[in-house]
């Protein structure tokens, strides 16, 4: 693991870009460029060399690292202390950085049971579009001083500011983990998932695709065994490999060609009106949909059940996200409040 503080270089690049009104493309590990709108800036601001774990205190359940630190380094350090990033972020390759992970705000299968990327964000140091270095939040679990800018940075795709470092809450690794599988049709699986989530069980993931419901249990050895006996089903020997493949989108489902949509909806919502095939994650609250339906139909279907859709991988970058008109104005004002000269990742967010 290498260690380097490149803050001064980053700030100076942003200062010069601001003076010249020259937009920047913020780059971490180059693993997630497919996501979001088309970035129009051609000058690259690389965070990849700005790396290193700055503080890690296992008894505090908090880790602080520079934005360019590879996720792999963070996972390795946490594993040594039997701790983990509770939101199980997808890496999509070995080069993923902490900054890119938080800027995208993706969370893995454990999300409904442990929390999302933004839920684990405690504080950050950023550079805004005026080349000012700012600190928000902190390294303690409870902190309500000032507006919650650190959580706002999660999922903002770098358009509000460049993350220099972040402090995240971490979780202890469960003592035991077990995966169960059962053959069920989609609608039955959806009902089963919601039934399970309505009970006090040590659930840590629930997915369904290709006619199989999969249930992951995490906790004390005795608790996992008791819950498994109650739920029933076949015990999967390759559970860890399966959840890893789901998180990293390495399952065959994701390899098929065509537009891939990500729908965030209420966990029992029925979306049968849309053609195509879907994979259910997050106990039904996350739907991966392979469809040739037009973008407007997908956005409308998600909205009809109070949710949201984004085009994950697909041809038409302009359709990736549909913002409500009332929100679009507010979001662009907010963006201007952080980045008044429009330096950061122009085009990546749809406003």
């Amino acid at each position: 693991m290498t260690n380097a503080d490149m803050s001064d270089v980053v700030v100076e690049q942003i200062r010069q870009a601001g003076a010249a009104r020259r937009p920047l493309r913020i780059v971490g590990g180059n693993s997630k460029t497919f996501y979001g709108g088309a970035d129009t800036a051609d000058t690259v601001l690389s965070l990849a060399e700005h790396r290193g774990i700055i503080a890690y205190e296992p008894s505090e359940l908090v880790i602080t690292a520079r934005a360019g630190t590879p996720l792999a380094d963070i996972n390795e350090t946490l594993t040594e202390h039997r701790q983990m990033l509770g939101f199980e972020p997808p890496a999509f390759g070995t080069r993923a950085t902490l900054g890119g992970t938080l800027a995208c705000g993706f969370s893995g299968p454990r999300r409904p049971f442990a929390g999302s990327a933004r839920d684990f964000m405690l504080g950050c140091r950023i550079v805004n579009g005026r080349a000012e270095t700012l600190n928000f939040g902190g390294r303690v679990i409870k902190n309500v001083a000032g507006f919650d800018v650190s959580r706002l940075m999660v999922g903002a795709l770098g358009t509000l500011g460049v993350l220099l470092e972040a402090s995240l809450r971490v979780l202890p690794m469960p003592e035991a983990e077990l995966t169960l599988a059962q053959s069920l049709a989609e609608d039955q699986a959806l009902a089963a998932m919601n039934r399970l989530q309505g009970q006090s069980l040590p659930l840590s993931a629930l997915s369904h695709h290709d006619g199989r419901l999969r249930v992951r249990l995490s906790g004390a050895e005795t608790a996992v065994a008791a819950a498994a006996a109650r739920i029933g089903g076949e015990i999967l020997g390759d559970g860890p490999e399966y959840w890893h493949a789901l998180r990293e989108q390495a399952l065959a489902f994701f390899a098929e060609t065509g537009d891939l949509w990500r729908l965030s909806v209420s966990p029992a919502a029925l979306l049968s009106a849309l053609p195509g095939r879907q994979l259910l994650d997050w106990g039904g609250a996350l739907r991966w949909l392979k469809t040739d339906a037009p973008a407007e139909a997908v956005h409308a279907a998600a909205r009809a059940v109070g949710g949201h859709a984004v085009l994950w991988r697909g041809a038409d970058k302009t359709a990736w996200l549909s913002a409500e008109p009332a929100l679009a104005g507010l979001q662009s004002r907010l963006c201007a409040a952080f980045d008044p000269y429009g330096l950061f990742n122009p085009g990546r967010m749809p406003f």
Partner: protein
Amino acid sequence: MTIASSFIRLCRQIVGDANVIADPALLRVYECDALAAYTQLPDLVVLPDSVEQIPAVLRLCHVHQIPVVARGAGTGLSGGALPVPGGIVLGLAKLNRILGVDPINRTATVQPGVRNLAISEAARPHGLYYPPDPSSQIACSIGGNIAENAGGVHCLKYGLTVHNVLQIKLATITGELLTLGGSGLDGAGYDLLALAIGSEGLLGVVVEATLRLLPTPPRVQVLLAAFATIEQAGAAVADIIGAGLIPAGLELMDNAAIRATEAFVHAGYPVEAAAILLCELDGQPEQVDADLARAEALLRAAGASEIRVAADAAQRQRFWAGRKAAFPAVGRIASDYYCMDGTIPRRHLAAVLAEIATLAERYGLSVVNVFHAGDGNLHPLILYDAGRPGDFDKAEALGGDILELCVRVGGTITGEHGVGHEKLPQMCVQFQAAELEQFHALKQAFDPDGLLNPGKAVPTLHRCAELGKMHVHGGRLPHPELERF
């Protein structure tokens, strides 16, 4: 400045005569929140009784440039709902309907004035509950909880308000209604939901919320561990968390708190102990059994002089009775007390408590400690006598010193009560000028004229300079071109 009678007439047209209070005697009720040391008589109180009236009132205030302070139940402890001169108080207590509980999707949709505890009561028949449980939960409103990002005993394991809200409807000062979040677990675009939670009524008024409900744990168990020194108790907290156990609650009471509550509720606490820890475990029975064995071993290894495991629900309640009655118990031994709220990294617990004792002695005041040890959230209760001239000023100064101590050890000036009016001076210690300016710019994106709860939560740089907390070069602030509110 007083509000023009023509404006009052327009308010009456929107909410009805009975829902507008202008009589000074009746306005008195609204002059402060639960931090009664700061008072300001409002010019007018407007009490909408339908959600649709809220955007209309806000639009009116925007047109007439009248400041608005939203108010839930007024249980805030930082003066967040303190009226501002020339402004109105928008009271939301009448909007107290639970709009629906969805047992399949495990959500509740409620109006802003619904009391926190009422949500869990409505969910109980479905085997569900709403986890965030501020100690004020029988009284405080969900709108106020969202504005303050309230926490409680159980937030170490179950998170703060921000972790348990799926969607809110937010009325802007121009009368627009925004839907932030959604029915799923995340939204699209910027996470405005996370930003709005904890924004202390400065960005908009929450008019509806959809909350996540969890299944009620079938088993709950509580341990009481006594320690001969505060250091041991503090170390035990770090040991438990470091070992990978996350209790549902982990609360610490020092000797003064043990004695005060024992005299009040007779919970059977060991009154000679320097500190006790209350450790609650919940969940599936097998999980609780396993956690209980580990917690007991960890507490013993940390040097606990006595460990009691509640034998039944009645004893469990007795263990908690003292903790829950701590505030009124302290109210019996001192004529007045001032409750502070700061968070520190857990490993500094013992050192910080010792430093608080030293500071208190210097001011000639007593401090009682009873707090959320599991998340390092301190609540020192500073005892004083409001009848003795200068005593409150001393308490306020001691409180300020304690918060600055929290910042010095890497913590923060507020873990759950918010900045409000109270902690503006300490904001100048925790944040630099550029950060405060960024907050102001952010606020402007929502509320360009600065009409929503002005002067709260984020101090102006002028104010920091006045307080001597921040150096402003030659009277010049960064970015003089930016308008300030």
